[in-house]
């Protein structure tokens, strides 16, 4: 029972990282109907920025996370302006958007790789202490990841639901062209949406780096987030969160009770099964009216 609870908490903490990424995907998808394939690069930038803020400049963790968010949001917005906007304005086919995004991601990840080297870096120990809760030991960092992820997701929820900016984003999600005609500045919506998704991926990058290691190809984990958002129903924000937690927990249980070798295999099998039997995901019905 203790082992079960322990694994559940581990699963939720990695699920929370997936959730940040999956929500970032869902946000961009719901507004622009395309998957942001450069997301892995944003995550890598976030993780490296935080790592070097702490190791080189000795900044405390919250400041490092804040700076990483800023840097990543900047990269995300420049990718939007440089690689997506010219295509979006021209209403280019989705295939071209995908290629452009892949290109941006390839360039950024490999620049990071060449500039900083491909080695695995251990994220500086923030706190190894763990909290005991009814016999279950929870690492401080895990707890922090879970809490911080949910605080940021709730903040996003409030931003989308309660503010004028959120109203504009939601209007664009329903129909970008009509929203533009109604006086919403589509370019600022794009900058906000990409900025927010950059911030989310920076947080995810920091927590993922802290849990495992910081290396240029850590962005591969976004595949999992994409699988999670397909499980949840692509384009649906609540679906993305539920799918991510589910995937995180399933993966952790597979590693704990079967073998960690099969962890990634299981997630791929789940993807195939979901595509076969629930092509719209578990929250599929809700993806129709978006957000």
């Amino acid at each position: 029972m203790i082992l079960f609870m322990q694994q559940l908490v581990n699963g939720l903490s990695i699920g929370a990282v997936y959730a940040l990424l999956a929500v970032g995907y869902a946000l961009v998808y719901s507004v622009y109907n395309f998957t942001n394939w450069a997301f892995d690069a944003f995550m890598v930038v976030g993780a490296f920025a935080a790592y070097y803020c702490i190791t080189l400049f000795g900044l405390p963790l919250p400041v490092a996370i804040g700076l990483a968010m800023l840097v990543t949001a900047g990269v995300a917005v420049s990718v939007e302006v440089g690689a997506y906007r010219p295509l979006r304005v021209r209403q280019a086919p989705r295939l071209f958007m995908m290629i452009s995004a892949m290109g941006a991601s390839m360039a950024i990840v490999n620049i990071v790789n060449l500039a900083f080297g491909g080695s695995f870096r251990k994220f500086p120990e923030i706190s190894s202490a763990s909290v005991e809760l009814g016999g279950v030991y929870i690492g401080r960092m895990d707890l922090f990841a879970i809490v911080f992820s949910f605080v940021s997701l709730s903040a996003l929820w409030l931003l989308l639901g309660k503010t004028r900016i959120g109203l504009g984003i939601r209007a664009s999600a329903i129909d970008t062209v009509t929203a533009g005609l109604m006086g919403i500045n589509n370019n600022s919506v794009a900058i906000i949406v990409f900025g927010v998704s950059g911030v989310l991926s920076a947080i995810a990058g920091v927590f993922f780096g802290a849990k495992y290691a910081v290396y240029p190809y850590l962005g591969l984990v976004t595949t999992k987030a994409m699988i999670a958002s397909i499980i949840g129903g692509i384009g649906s924000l609540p679906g993305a969160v539920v799918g991510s937690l589910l995937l995180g927990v399933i993966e952790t249980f597979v590693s704990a009770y079967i073998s960690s070798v099969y962890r990634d295999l299981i997630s791929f099998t789940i993807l195939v099964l979901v595509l076969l039997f629930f092509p719209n995901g578990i929250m599929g019905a809700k993806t129709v009216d978006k957000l």
Partner: protein
Amino acid sequence: MGYLTSILILGCINIVVVLGLSVLTGYTGLFSIGHAGFMAVGGYAAAIIYIRLHVPFALALPLGGVAAGLSSYIIGYPAFRGKLRGDYFAIATLGFAEAVRLLLNTTYPVIGGAYGLMGIPQKTNLPIALAVALLAFAGAQSFVRSQHGKNCVAVYDDETAAQMMGVDLLRTKLMALFISAFYAGVAGALYAFYMAYLSPSMFGISKSSDLLAAVVFGGMQSIIGPVIIAFVTVALPELLRFLLAWRLVIYGLLFVVMMVFRPQGLLGYRELDFGPGWRRATAAVASRLGKPRPPRGPQGPVEGTP
């Protein structure tokens, strides 16, 4: 001589995969970011049936292709059945390639796992590689000119309109995927019998990116463009060794620049044409290798087949 031959052989192998990927991405508009996975399946399958079952080399090549083609249904059928967006398929191919790599890594007692599969005889030489590349070229050429190829182009341009005109979306996409996976499998087999050694790390993400780059730079809906680039991307790194590390950065930036300024690629929607003689020659080769099906319905003669 040996060095030049090896570049030529690797170039031919690359051409075979890229031809298949061009049918899938360039003509059907389906984006695969895990094509190295199919190469791995084909290479391993061919090597294993050769070593364990003593199947002759000439038969092992196509069987490797068939194995890769069949494995493509694992992702093709679920992803295409529900008329899902291309993004699902792309992520499924990436997942497939990773899954194949992980599975191969865990097979140490049977086929060497991460240490690699050894004991494959070196059978691929320049004449064989050239012959396969030529066959593959002619086959792809005749496919895209056939009715099936036209269905693929229709799906690329507008799925809904294609369906309205009676194109079976699921069948067309599965066929394009099968062909491209088959090509990748054959190429994987050629590669296995050339390197005389296989390891899962040969078929990583950067291999898939290289393949995709050839199709994107070569051009959409063109066979000859990707073929040229496929050869160049093998030969060029040999000449520009100092740029090798920056290769993927340059590819990435070029992807973006190309999509913004010249999205159709180098030779998009075009084929090399050296006049009527060239057209007759390629058509003759194409028709010897499988007659394009006559068009069904009241469409009249197909313009692409002279």
